[in-house]
């Protein structure tokens, strides 16, 4: 891949005014946000954070126990968030983290108070509207002890985007016996470059579930969230569903460190190259015992493309149990014929197998989001067979 020239993008000057009601958004922008899982009606949502280009335009929590702020406000309110801000990701890691550290545009701060179980998901959207806009965001999610929340975050560009760069830092803190489900849906364009940098820590008895869906083209994306399970009995699971059409270059992975006894980690990645290139990485490190980790990278090449599966396991002590399963291949003829013997024609059979392979169902998403994802899969199937 070519080196990304950040100088080609505008990192200043595009700040829109507050949008109190999301229904006032431009209909085409609304449609693009919907594709990234954002419900502008805010039905069944506990809160919404929306940023367009370089600034927040909407930030509202509807739920006691859920604090939702623009990151700049949170930094002001909490004296720079010591112990949290830039603790999970190294600000000096690369040019993208440095760019974000030097010129912060926004991002969300979510804090769920001790014991609060937020019934409906919190949604956020980081939207790139202007041409050749570069966006630096920094998100912090703190789920205090015994609390629970589902964050659905959509990142999207306007459908007529001719180029955009999204640099996003995310830091997660899951307290004792707390649970964070983090669902990220990306809706980019074939001209977008994306560099998220994500890290997090889970304390004893806590759970972190990460769902990642990328079905639309993207020029160049590199993402490698790393989670450390530091407390006894902590668990983490990453489910990723990635489709790379022609022109897409996606280097995506997940990393789990099992640093305490009785921790469990699971990484499940399903990838389809339909003309594009996917590097599917996974790393589980077992540094305490007993601890279990399983990694599954499965890829299909349908209609051209490249899949490079890189599963890694590292055990550093007696008693860890780590395993992986990696496969890159095609749809088995035997499966297609089985379904055809039940009356499905070849396209129906192939589509049924592809949907099963991508298996978005295990993510347990709200119905309307799942419907949008299903529709997007149906759309992208046209390039597969």
């Amino acid at each position: 891949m070519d080196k990304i020239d950040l100088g080609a993008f505008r990192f200043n000057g595009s700040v829109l005014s507050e949008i109190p009601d999301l229904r006032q958004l431009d209909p085409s922008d609304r449609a693009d946000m919907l594709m990234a899982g954002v419900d502008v009606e805010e039905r069944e949502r506990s809160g919404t954070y929306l940023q367009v280009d370089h600034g927040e335009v909407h930030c509202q929590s509807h739920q006691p126990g859920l604090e939702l702020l623009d990151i700049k406000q949170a930094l002001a309110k909490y004296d720079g968030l010591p112990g949290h801000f830039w603790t999970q990701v190294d600000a000096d890691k690369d040019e993208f983290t440095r760019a974000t550290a030097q010129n912060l545009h926004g991002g969300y701060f979510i804090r769920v108070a001790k014991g609060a179980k937020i019934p409906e998901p919190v949604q956020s959207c980081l939207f790139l509207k202007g041409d050749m806009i570069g966006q630096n965001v920094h998100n912090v999610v703190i789920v205090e002890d015994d609390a629970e929340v589902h964050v659905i975050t959509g990142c999207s560009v306007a459908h007529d985007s001719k180029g955009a760069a999204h640099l996003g830092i995310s830091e997660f803190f899951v307290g004792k016996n707390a649970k964070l489900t983090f669902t990220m849906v990306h809706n980019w364009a074939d001209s977008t470059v994306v560099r998220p940098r994500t890290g997090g820590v889970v304390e004893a008895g806590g759970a972190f579930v990460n769902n990642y869906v990328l079905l639309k083209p993207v020029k160049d994306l590199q993402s490698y969230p790393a989670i450390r399970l530091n407390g006894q009995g902590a668990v983490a699971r990453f489910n990723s569903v990635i489709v790379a059409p022609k022109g897409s270059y996606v280097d995506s992975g997940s990393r789990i460190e099992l640093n305490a006894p009785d921790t469990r980690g699971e990484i499940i990645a399903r990838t389809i190259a339909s003309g594009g290139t996917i590097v599917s990485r996974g790393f589980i490190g077992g540094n305490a015992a007993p601890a279990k980790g399983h990694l599954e990278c499965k890829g299909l090449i349908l209609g051209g493309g490249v899949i490079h599966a890189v599963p890694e396991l590292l055990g550093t002590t007696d008693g860890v149990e780590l395993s992986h399963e990696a496969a890159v291949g095609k749809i088995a003829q035997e499966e297609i014929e089985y379904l055809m013997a039940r009356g499905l024609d070849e396209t129906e059979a192939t589509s049924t197998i592809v949907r099963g392979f991508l298996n978005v169902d295990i993510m347990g998403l709200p119905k309307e989001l799942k419907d949008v994802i299903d529709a997007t899969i149906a759309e992208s199937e046209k390039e597969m067979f």
Partner: protein
Amino acid sequence: MLRIEDLHVMIGEKEVLSGINLHIAENETFILFGPNGSGKTTLLMTLMGFGNYTITKGRILFRGQDITHAPVYERARLGLGMSFQRPPTIHGLTTRQLVTLCDRGGATDVEGLARSVHMDTFLERDINAGFSGGEIKRSELLQLMAQKPYMLLFDEPESGVDLENMKLIGTTVRGLLTGSIAPKPETSMKEQRVKKRPVSGLIITHTGYILEYLNADRGQVLYNGHLCCEANPRDILDHITKYGYQECVRCLQ
């Protein structure tokens, strides 16, 4: 219902079926015997239309249509239904979803059907993932009940099945073949039989256990790609039990 004329089939370079002629009438159940490797499964797979089985001569007529070269799904939609011996696991496709797909109308009472073959607790599981021998058979029957075929192709209903499951499978196959005909005040059983959708069966068996549960009309032995020895299936079974397939060899010489 089904007419096979002078059917020759090759797998790769090898001819496995050599001139099969067979007619199965409406509402008739036909039992196919034969030693391992005689071509029984090949016949079923060829009838269903799978790749790897090349028809070099002859034709297959089903419900009046020539299906010799029809794609698999067209045969299925026309009413050919097959129970697979070793079906593949499809990850992410639940038993419930597949049963719903089998019934293209979509009106099937999936729960009710599943209960009748003790598969109701399997509906949310991925199809065939970790299923035992008996579970595979019951799952196949569940799909066929939703599919409602005119002709049932069943390869060894008793393989890998314990006795309790055998009874359930036997009575379910019987139900698929004969429908639910019982005395009713408004219509006689004879009238019901006339009005009923015709269903025929072609069943492969080694042990004959399935014969305990259904009325099989005719049977034949397939040996080395040739059909021979047409008789009552029970008589064939008795003969094979006593003398093996040696007499078939003599008969064909």
